[in-house]
């Protein structure tokens, strides 16, 4: 009798430790913003791709992907994931930093492993791991390209900004710092295009009215680059040598691959970072190896030579 008791106790203990050894079921919750523009559409696409791939690779892993249209919906969702779905780990791309810090901290307090993606929380203690793109590099890589491409001749540059946010401020500051290294480059103005095609079209039209000579445009985003290119085309201006967007929209990567003169390069800020975060989290859960506290996905310059590896023709972005 005693032996049997001891045996069950032992196996229960073993099962407990096996939690991190991959023999018991792991439930991973993924909470992301719903697809409301190109980049978030890419996030949703890559999250679902990663779910399929990871569930196939690890039969004991179940992944639940939830999308939320705003912070309060997302807060409710992660609460449900913790209490109803009993998740072991949460991968979250917060809609906004401040309002979600408390809810995420609550989930972590329940023993759930938390990986935060892209937009950091206001209190890093609310997370176990952080996976993010590099907004500073996003601006810097683009700026460095302008310095190198415009060279000693320099030139007039106009900038389109996104939506007034910390992310946009970091990117623009890094771009300005990079181009400042070449005193011959003059940034004529930087106005908000709101990461939106129509707004970018209008702002570019007005830049073209205002400035008789523009050498290059930093559209800072591929959605905005679409509007910028149309405005230039409409005005039939030939002074503009090139436009640089960013984030890796498939149509724009295609243009780089094809050697389009107006779109020579792109800078990545890949929505596939959600897939990286999910993979790292699942691997660490299954193998029991700790995950790095901070993983930065670098922003790299996409040129004709390496464009192929950033081209996802089936993604909506």
């Amino acid at each position, binding site marked *: 009798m005693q032996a049997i008791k001891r045996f069950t106790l032992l196996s229960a203990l073993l099962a407990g430790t096996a939690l991190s050894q991959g023999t018991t079921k792991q439930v991973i919750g993924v909470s992301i913003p719903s697809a409301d523009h190109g980049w978030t*559409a*890419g996030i*949703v696409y890559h999250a679902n791709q990663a779910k399929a791939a990871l569930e196939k690779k690890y039969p004991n892993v179940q992944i639940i992907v939830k999308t939320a249209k705003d912070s309060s919906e997302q807060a409710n969702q992660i609460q449900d994931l913790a209490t109803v779905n009993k998740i072991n780990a949460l991968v979250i791309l917060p809609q906004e930093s401040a309002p979600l810090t408390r809810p995420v901290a609550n989930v972590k307090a329940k023993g759930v492993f938390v990986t935060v993606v892209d937009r950091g929380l206001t209190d890093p203690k609310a997370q176990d791991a952080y996976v993010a793109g590099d907004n500073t590099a996003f601006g810097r890589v683009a700026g460095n390209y302008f310095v190198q491409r415009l060279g000693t001749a320099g030139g007039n540059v106009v900038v389109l900004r996104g939506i*007034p946010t910390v992310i946009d401020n970091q990117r623009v500051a890094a771009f300005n710092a990079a181009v400042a290294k070449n005193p011959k480059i003059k940034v004529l103005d930087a106005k908000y295009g709101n990461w*939106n095609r129509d707004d970018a079209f209008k702002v570019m039209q*007005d830049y073209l009215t*205002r400035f008789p000579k523009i050498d290059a445009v930093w559209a800072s985003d591929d959605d905005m680059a*679409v509007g910028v290119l149309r405005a230039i085309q409409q005005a039939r201006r030939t002074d503009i040598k090139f436009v640089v967007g960013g984030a890796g929209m498939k149509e724009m990567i295609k243009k780089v691959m094809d050697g389009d003169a107006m779109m020579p390069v792109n800078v990545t800020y890949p929505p596939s970072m959600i897939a990286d975060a999910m993979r790292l989290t699942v691997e660490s859960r299954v193998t029991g190896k700790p995950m790095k506290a901070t993983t930065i996905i670098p922003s790299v310059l996409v040129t004709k030579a390496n464009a192929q590896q950033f081209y996802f023709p089936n993604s909506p972005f």
Partner: protein
Amino acid sequence: MPDSPVSEAATTRVTPRSVLTRLGALGPLLGLLALAIVATLLNPDFLTVSNLSNVLTRAAFTGIIAVGMTFVIISGGIDLSVGSLAALIAGSMILIMNTLKTSLGAGVGTIALGMLAALAIGALAGLFHGTTITRGRIEPFIVTLGTLGIYRAVLTYLAQGGAISLDLDIGDRYSPVYYGRLLGIPIPILVFAAVALLGGLILNRTRYGRYVQAIGSNEQVARYAAINVTGVKIATYVLLGVCVGLATILYVPQLGSATPSTGLLWELDAIAAVIIGGTALRGGSGRIWGTVVGAVLLVTIGNVLNLTNIISVYLNAAVTGLVIILVAFFQRGRR
């Protein structure tokens, strides 16, 4: 209105109050003129032909919608869904034309059918709004708040959150509708002018227009006067739906794509244009020309801000808000 005999007497004589009232009616126009003068002082490029044609072309989208909105608001209604509807129509139209290309090719036929579909979807949406509001007896605010969400969600679903792009061959054939000119004037401006002219005629010179105004000022009285209130109201929403379809027909060739952020906040621009133009939000009276001026005024503010560097870019929306309130202030004498 207990004071109506007094104010009637006041308008027959030339009193300081009546002069103010007349000046107030010109409020939006004076506002636009003042803005244009300021803009020219800040940047002489404002008055170039190419800039003015940019401004008017931009105003055409929300302006055409605002003309339809004027009817809805005068009749005592409101439509919050027009921006979402424009996005949904744009997406559907692109998908329809891309599909038709396989059987009809990238010719005029495909584009004509696409345009027809845009107008039909707009009219159907208007019919749905009008019927639900009148026969279903639901507040227009609620019905169109609901469809605002529905239309944009359906478009986002169709686009998988990304973009729906027009086939390149069709885009080439279609682009003159936005980028083309007739007698040197961009086509969207001509269509806008035609819609405004027609809207003005319908509102002021037809029995239907008078019915719309009568219903807006007192629905019960209109009913006793044997006006088909339900029919007239439904027709205002259908008219607006067709206007949204028309605006979208001009919009699609601009960028050749529809995304979940297409037409975002157009409903507020259209409503603001109507109200700046001197139409009462509670219905009863209004002017099409005022709406046109309102639409141009709103676009001009954005243009001026882009042409100058004086005000911090963070404050753009504040300037727009301030101008809206100022113009409304100068025409308050009319109420």
